[in-house]
């Protein structure tokens, strides 16, 4: 794969491209597989420092005791986990599950047609539409939340228009309701649904669809028999990517919710901040994480079977 003539040595220094080339081919060609393992080093270090170590610390913390003034007492105990299984936390768990499921469902309903359009019909507008999808995601989360507060508030944009237009006589309670929390979640996590859907729709060989038409199938049949089944990996990936962050979200409920929309994320955040009970917070986090990973694993096993 030489593309250029070897460079002449300058001032007695070995030409860099040669050595560089040599190193690269040593790493990439994988003649000795151990060498190409070196490529994993940055990622492995990253994962160790920023994922595995913090997780290990979280697990260790979850079996310590909360001392006076929120300090840690290093006597090992399972109390935090026993406390977490207290039935009083069940409503919060169920609420969080239902909000996450509703958000995932709505994102799927909104996201699928959008991804389908992007992949099959958007043409030259595709780039623009993808950017439009991502812009809210790049905006600071707090700015977005405050914008929603301005739009949904009792004296907000929507209510003002409805009142001015004499469509309503009393302002609607839109903010600080389950509606506004789910709206906020859908708003934040829609890109997580659309992007995997879009990429799985993009991967469908167009010849298959043409073949289906050639064999006399209609548009509906082609969609149901070809496009939809082949896009299922995207549906699954998008749903997982939406559902999981929803389970841990606390900002949306904190700012757009009410006392009746208290979610698991709020419960955990309150342990770390307000109650200064890091061991219990860690136990709750570990359980939530275990539940999500376990659920995912079960699903994959079931899918393979």
């Amino acid at each position, binding site marked *: 794969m030489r593309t250029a003539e070897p460079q002449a040595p300058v001032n007695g220094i070995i030409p860099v491209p040669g050595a560089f080339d040599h190193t690269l081919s040593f790493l990439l060609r994988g003649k000795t597989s151990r060498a190409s393992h070196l490529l994993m080093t940055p990622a492995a270090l990253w994962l160790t420092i920023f994922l595995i170590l913090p997780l290990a610390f979280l697990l260790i913390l979850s079996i310590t005791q909360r001392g006076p003034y929120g300090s840690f007492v290093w006597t090992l105990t399972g109390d935090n986990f026993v406390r977490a299984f207290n039935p009083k936390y069940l409503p919060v768990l169920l609420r969080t599950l239902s909000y996450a499921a509703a958000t995932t469902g709505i994102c799927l309903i909104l996201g699928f047609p959008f991804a389908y359009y992007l992949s099959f019909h958007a043409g030259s507008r595709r780039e623009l539409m993808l950017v439009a999808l991502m812009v809210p995601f790049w905006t600071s989360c707090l700015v977005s939340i405050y914008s929603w507060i301005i739009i949904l508030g009792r004296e907000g944009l929507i209510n003002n228009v409805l009142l001015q237009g004499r469509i309503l006589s009393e302002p609607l*309670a839109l903010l600080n309701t389950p509606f506004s929390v789910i709206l906020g979640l859908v708003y934040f996590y829609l890109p997580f649904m659309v992007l995997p859907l879009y990429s799985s729709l993009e991967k469908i060989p167009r010849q298959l669809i043409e073949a289906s038409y050639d064999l006399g199938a209609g548009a509906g049949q082609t969609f149901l028999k070809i496009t939809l089944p082949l896009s299922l990996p995207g549906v699954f990936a998008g749903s997982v990517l939406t559902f999981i962050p929803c389970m841990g979200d606390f900002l949306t409920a904190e700012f757009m919710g009410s*006392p009746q929309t*208290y979610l698991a994320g709020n419960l955990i955040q309150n342990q770390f901040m307000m109650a200064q009970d890091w061991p219990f917070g860690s136990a709750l986090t570990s359980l939530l994480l275990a539940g999500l990973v376990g659920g995912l694993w079960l699903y994959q096993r079931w899918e393979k079977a």
Partner: protein
Amino acid sequence: MNYTRRDFLKTAARGLAAVPLLSCAKEEKREINFFNWSKYIGKDTLPRFTQQTGIPVNYEEFADEEEMFAKLRSGAMGYDLIVGTDYMIEKLKALNLIDPIPDGALSHRGNIDPRFLNTPFDPENAYTIPYLWGTTGIGYNKSKMAKPPRSWRDLWDEKHSGRLSMLDNARDCVSTSLLMLGYPETTKDPAAFKAVRELLLKQKPLVKQYSSATYIDGLVAGELHMSMAWSGDVLQAARENPQIDYVIPQEGSYMWVDNLCLVRGSRHREDTLRLLDYLLEGPVAAEIAGAVRYASPNAAAKPHLDKALLSDPRVFPGKDIASRLNFHKILTPEISQLWNETWSDVKVS
């Protein structure tokens, strides 16, 4: 070139000597880092200090005291001066997060009203300089109320369902509930906590939000009719909107003191003490109190205070109200845990 070993040693020694000098030069950025509640100071207070002394002050804000505490506890570096409420001082001391203020370092320390000295949270006056004090009460929007609230029970009034707000912390909610139910603040009685939980849960369906920061906007916009509130926050809003008012309920309430404290082992100690002394000056303390509408524990500030503020019973309560105001007691960690659990239970239910 002749390069003897002695020469080498000399150069090396010089190099080594330069290392601490270099790191010093880096750290020597002369700036006091002041960690305080958001907008809890006069507009010109700090710029004027910088103008007088040439020492820049970096004012960093927090909206939630527990957030400040969590930051300090997890080892956040670089803060020199912080503001903490009475009960927080206890925790900061217990976890060795603040330093005593050196004796004789401040020339205006005598300005503090003796009423705010030898407090339960700092009996020796070793760690704290009282900064501002205020009360917990009810803020309300007059245009939404047939008559002004008088009792804590008014926050349980179903007529205002969905238009009520409570401060989001165990400290204020549990203490006032105990007060309403007639239990002493330091009770350990499980029946008391069961009753508090039931009382707060009865109110929960009526509550629009538990928040310590956004209730003012709600009151001003009329989305909230009444809110459990901190005096100065409401009175700042009342300055611009005459519909907003504040009352200390007839059952009585709590007064609290925010204190200036030196962060343990912080740099810029000398400059920080200079800032502390400046904040203790009568006119400066008066300016701060005037801006934030909280009462000043500084006796020397009195002659400089705005007359209207000084005669405002909502800021400086008269004898009859003052007799119904108490400092929070110091809670043992065990009781404190009961408070936190009770509040947490109310929120998850």
